[in-house]
């Protein structure tokens, strides 16, 4: 029996199929397939957020990812200006003034309504919002932002006074204008049990919270009751996109209007900029440094630590890891903030000769072998590789130990065991706030074994830290903070790297607005030509 060949489909021979499909494909190639545009537009703004929400409640919100959204749906008494500085302007307050070092008076604008029928914003809502932050029963994560706030006295429906136990220089930028100072409705928050996470019971800002879909997006809509300048967009969609590469692709595909991108893609984007788009490389509030655990036996001799300081070529590190976009840092306090130093004690390029000399004086047998812990992030890994190269030139060999963020965050912790004793070198970074105190508070003796992994301890530093926080004179504060950074550097425990940058790409169909630390200010984003 011969094998029967499969039958053709009725009316379609192989030859005719090939002929017809070729014709169709050629036709498509010639005429072009209609392009489907996914881009933004209309009345909706599409923005990337670098992570998903966990809480929009000021007592428990943890990151700027939440602050970006809550600042658009809530009001503070004062808010930051959208001019890239930490200067403030009136928001919900009609007036705000400092009476003396521990008293601040405010008066609310009339007729500001909370959504969902929770009525007009009153001084009692301000009292509620601030006092719940310092209420021990609330166990607020952001309690430190309030400093020595005692209570709020309410005088009438719209006015009141903040009473502090002691002077607190960061009160306005951190407590009043920061995310912790957002004014919530007493009635609304009480109605949901006193706290909330991803579903705020009401809003009072230019935009209202509409919905949150886990791992997807948060949708804000224009607040029809808003009495201020009408927001330019009917809706804002904020996408949770932890991976910057995905965001970059989505921007190129036209699906985002504004996105924080990675430093390594700035130049390629500039070379081949998507249509009608721009890039702005903004300063970031993130401070990077090389830390040294001075209690580790290999690093107890200050000359060894200083040799490492002098060996590291910070310019090369910044050039390689930040593609030359960031500036070399002179300390944790960034440019434009009280206490910023114009220069570091050790030159950015370092001094390998001096490093060798210090090692020789310390009687170190070369090669000196050290470990360096680092977060397994591509930027930080590049940075430590350049440091390794710098250190090798003076006879120090480094074993780089990349670790995932959660593990890395515990290496210097005393309460989790003795692993902190093995820590030698590490690259670390912290994000600052709108006041210099926050950039330096992690290095006090009280932070030993918590966040102070260098085990740096200085009575003068601790004293100045307290004094500077209680001093409201900017010039005096500046002197103190500069001295504190000198002390850090003199200890040999730190080699400051950079305050980093935050590149943002956006369509020219919007007029973006960014904070001084590079984060997007959603409520301030406008259309070109719509006024400021």
């Amino acid at each position, binding site marked *: 029996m011969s094998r029967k060949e499969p039958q053709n489909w009725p009316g379609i021979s192989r030859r005719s199929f090939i002929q017809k499909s070729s014709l169709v494909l050629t036709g498509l190639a010639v005429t072009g397939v209609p392009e489907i545009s996914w881009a933004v537009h209309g009345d909706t703004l599409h923005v990337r957020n670098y992570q998903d929400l966990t809480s929009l409640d000021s007592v428990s919100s943890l990151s700027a990812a939440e602050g970006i959204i809550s600042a658009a749906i809530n009001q503070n008494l004062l808010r930051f200006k959208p001019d890239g500085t930490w200067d403030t302007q009136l928001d919900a307050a009609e007036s705000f003034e400092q009476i003396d070092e521990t008293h601040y008076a405010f008066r609310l604008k009339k007729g500001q309504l909370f959504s969902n029928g929770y009525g007009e914003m009153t001084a009692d809502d301000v009292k509620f919002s601030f006092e719940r932050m310092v209420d021990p029963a609330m166990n607020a994560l952001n309690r430190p932002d309030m400093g020595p706030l005692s209570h709020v006295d309410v005088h009438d429906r719209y006015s009141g006074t903040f009473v502090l136990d002691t002077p607190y220089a960061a009160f306005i930028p951190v407590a009043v204008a920061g995310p912790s100072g957002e004014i919530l409705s007493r009635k609304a928050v009480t109605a949901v049990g006193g706290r909330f996470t*991803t579903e705020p019971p009401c809003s009072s800002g230019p935009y209202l919270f509409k919905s949150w879909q886990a791992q997807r997006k948060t949708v804000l809509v224009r607040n029809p009751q808003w009495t201020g300048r009408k927001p330019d967009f009917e809706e804002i969609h904020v996408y949770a996109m932890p991976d910057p590469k995905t965001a970059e692709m989505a921007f190129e595909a036209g*699906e985002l209007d504004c996105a924080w991108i990675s430093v390594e893609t700035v130049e390629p984007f500039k070379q081949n900029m998507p249509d009608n788009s721009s890039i702005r490389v903004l300063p970031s509030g993130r401070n990077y440094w090389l830390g040294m655990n001075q209690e580790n036996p290999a690093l107890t001799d200050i000359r060894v630590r200083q040799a490492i300081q002098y060996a590291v070529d910070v310019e090369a590190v910044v050039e390689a890891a930040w593609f030359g976009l960031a500036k070399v840092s002179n300390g944790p306090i960034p440019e434009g903030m009280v206490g910023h130093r114009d220069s570091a004690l050790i030159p950015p390029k370092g001094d390998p000769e001096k490093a060798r000399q210090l090692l020789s004086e310390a009687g170190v047998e070369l090669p000196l072998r050290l470990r360096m812990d680092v977060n397994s992030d591509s930027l930080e890994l590049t940075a430590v590789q350049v440091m390794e190269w710098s250190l090798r030139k003076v006879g120090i060999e480094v074993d780089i130990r990349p670790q*995932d963020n959660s593990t890395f965050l*515990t290496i210097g912790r005393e309460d989790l065991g003795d692993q902190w004793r093995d820590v030698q070198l590490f690259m670390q970074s912290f994000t600052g706030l709108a006041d210099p105190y926050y950039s330096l508070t992690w290095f006090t003796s009280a932070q030993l074994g918590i966040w102070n992994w260098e085990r740096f301890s200085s009575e003068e530093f601790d004293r100045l830290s307290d004094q500077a926080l209680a001093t409201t004179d900017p010039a005096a504060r500046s002197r103190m903070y500069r001295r504190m950074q000198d002390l850090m550097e003199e200890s040999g425990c730190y080699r400051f790297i950079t305050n980093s940058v935050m590149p943002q790409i956006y369509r020219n169909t919007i007029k973006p607005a960014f904070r001084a630390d590079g984060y997007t200010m959603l409520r301030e984003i406008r259309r070109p030509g719509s006024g400021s």
Partner: protein
Amino acid sequence: MLRFIVRRGLLSLLILFLAVSLMFGMIHMVPGDPATVMLGPKATPEMKAEFSRRLGLDQPLAVQLGRFYAGLARGDLGEDPFTNREVTVIVWEQLPYTLVLVLVAIGGASLLGIPLGCFSAIRRNSLLDRLTAVMSVAFIAIPSFVVALYLLLWLAVKWRWFPAMGAGESGNLADQAHHLVLPAIALGLGWVGYIARMVRASMLEVMEENHIRTARAFGLPERTVIVHYALRIAMLPTVTILGMGIGTMLSGALFAEIVFSRPGIGKLLYEAVLTRNYPIVMGSVLVTTGFFVLSTLASDIINAMLDPRLRERQGSGE
């Protein structure tokens, strides 16, 4: 058949128990402090201690595991310490996205791979067979994330035929289907080659068997012989592989969910591991392992239905 299903079901439960217990131990042994990651730098040591107590992390591992199973027996997987939402709700919210992606990917791969494998076997050594062989190996060899990136670059970024991110608007099926195309191709393409090779090899073996020769001798149409007699038997190993494939894809969907910024169980699990969010990790692991076991069980049952010999062997306890 019932006895076969019961036996397989019990074995599946045992596998599930062992896998989840193992995962529980492993994730808790990885260094890292959930309190530090979740509460941020401003948290006081007291807050961290309270947090650990609330999660039960201050208890020995065996006690924690016991509590996990006790909760599971009540249908309670605990709360996400970040958002205070129930883990079951969070996991069930994300699961449909991954399930649909996996089913579409494996379904599409089967729809392409099975006919390709069949044709290759029927037209052995023909141009089509050789072409299929080359393409299959290429599909298997190219890593899925590379496929995903090129699909994004060409079909989403350059031509804008498909969206680059997300899962589409809730309630809009057409939009969701449109958002599914690229991730499903990226996830399923390698399986096209795999299934085609598998079906081809099985078909070639089956086509040489006596019952096929007998069917032809009876003068049955070739299509009937191939579809009803040969393919049915040749599908047995493929069904087993598909069952495993669904399970593997459930965890492999992670790259597609990250590259295409899609919600899903893979992404949920990945982020939970990074932040040491143990309740979410365990909820996600339980569900993915459960589906893995379930899909393997389903493939065993389908195999038994397709092959009476297997059914009889299992039924007699061999």
